[in-house]
């Protein structure tokens, strides 16, 4: 059974159809790429999965559970985390606090525990800080943990977003253009990082325009055009698919 399945998802804004009847089965333990020309509805599809927008029709099932229309924070709790195309970090806060944000949904201390500081609260705080630091180390930003996030380079900000998403203990990670704004060296490191995420047992779905990256790291690729899935399959298969070449590769590259 697949980990995440989308069944007949549709979403339109005003008269504009962004996602039209998309059905997809996304399996566990894989890196899957979602590609398509600009305006194909990729980010909208992400927003639907993570509850940032509600689908007009259709259903989303995660691990057999219907999560259609759940609010974002509930989706994250169930194990789907994401990064944003236009980076959304807590700019004035430190790197460590940014990653701690991801731990939030795994901690239990409420108002009362915050005031009374029982042992479990102190313990979980300590563990959360340690975990956050480890996630920073995982993406290679541990040294700068006390600096404000706003001071990082574009590429490092993307890595920090990934660390923050990983801190939520996701089973499924959605990356929206992770290589956007990265140089060649950074992109190469990112490819390694994505593989490492996969080997932690986290499935990855990513939107990316860097075809080199997509072809190298993805086991399977889904192609979206005008909100419709026009092809899916292994990278070699997609490269040869006439519809894809026509719609996407042919026109651009």
């Amino acid at each position, binding site marked *: 059974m697949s980990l995440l399945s989308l069944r007949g998802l549709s979403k339109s804004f005003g008269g504009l159809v962004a996602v039209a009847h998309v059905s997809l089965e996304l399996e566990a333990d894989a890196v899957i790429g979602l590609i398509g020309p600009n305006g194909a509805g990729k980010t909208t599809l992400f927003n639907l999965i993570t509850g940032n927008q509600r689908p007009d029709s259709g259903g989303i099932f995660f691990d057999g559970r219907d999560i259609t229309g759940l609010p974002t924070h509930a989706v994250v709790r169930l194990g789907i985390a994401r990064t944003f195309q236009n980076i959304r970090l807590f700019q004035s806060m430190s790197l*460590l606090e940014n990653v701690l944000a991801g731990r939030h949904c795994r901690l239990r201390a409420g108002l009362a525990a915050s005031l009374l500081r029982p042992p479990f609260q102190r313990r979980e705080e300590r563990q959360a800080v340690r975990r956050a630091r480890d996630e920073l180390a995982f993406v290679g930003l541990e040294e700068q943990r006390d600096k404000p996030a706003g001071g990082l380079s574009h590429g490092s900000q993307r890595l920090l977003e990934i660390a*923050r998403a990983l801190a939520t203990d996701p089973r499924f990670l959605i990356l929206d253009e992770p290589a956007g704004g990265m140089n060649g060296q950074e992109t190469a490191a990112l490819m390694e990082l994505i593989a490492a995420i996969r080997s932690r047992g986290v499935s990855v779905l990513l939107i990316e325009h860097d075809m080199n990256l997509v072809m190298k790291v993805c086991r399977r690729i889904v192609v979206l055009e005008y909100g419709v899935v026009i092809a899916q399959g292994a990278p070699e298969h997609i490269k040869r698919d006439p519809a894809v070449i026509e719609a996407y590769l042919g026109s651009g590259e």
Partner: protein
Amino acid sequence: MIAARRSLLSWSAFFASLAALPPLLPLLGVDGGGAVQIGVLNDIGIYLILALSLNIILGHAGIFHMGHTAFFAVGAYAAAILNTSCGWPILSALPVAGLLAALLAFLVAVPVIRLRGDYLLVVTIGVVEIVRICLVNNIFGLTGGANGIAGIGRAVILGRRLTTPADIFYLIWSFAALSVLLFSLLENSRFGRALNYIREDEVAAAGCGINTGRHKIQAFVLGAFWAGMAGTLFAVKTRLVDPESFTFSESVMLFAIVILGGAGSMAGIVLGTFLLIGLQEIFRDFLEARMLVFGAAMVAMMIFRPQGLLPARARRYDTGGRTGASPGAAGREKKPGPPAGNGAAGT
């Protein structure tokens, strides 16, 4: 931890030096035994408690809330009514006053909390006006209309009646000290952090699994609860509550204190309260021009300290031993296990 201890020390020193004032002022030969100064300090204390409670909403959660007086008023009136009509000792009304204010805040917040910044601002202003109009129009025959409610009994603590301004001073400032303690615990916790994430970027906060709506409502209700209790202290101090004490301009003053002191910074808010409330008293020598000078001073302070007088400082975390440098993505050899708990420090 060291930072926390040092701040605890400074706060203790601050409150201790304040506590020494009432006996000290007469010894210094201040006219009238310092009653003027104590009276002003009592006002400052109440404003400080209110500003600290607003700080949770406005400073930490970033909710544009310019209607804090509404909750203050509900608390003050609840205490006054329970005391004069039901014969409760005034201080025993403290929790009930807080709860009623919290209830109002909850009813207001649930439908409107998702409104964006300035729309929420006008809603909160509307709430102050609605509450004031209700008070003036003697709603349910309880609030005494424009006259307000007079004849509130003196507070009694452990058999001692609080009669002098100095008595009230110790009551108000003990509560202020308690507020500082509780709010600093709250700030440095999962809850306080979540509010800051929401203030910085609500969408990203939700994307981290934070229930933004619930946290905002909690912050709003908690701030209102505290303001309601401050209302009780106000009733203890003035022994007369009337609608004129709870106007929109009081809300504006509180809003200004929080932003001018430094949103999210308790030390800044203490300084802001002393300045904004204290300055009005100091500028008395200007007589008619008093508020003119005050307004100009407000603009000047914002221009010279746009981040607030004492901006909030970053939280410090005890991150244990340092792990080795990890250039690029190489650090991932020290792979943290997925669930919390087993990511023990490397060294």
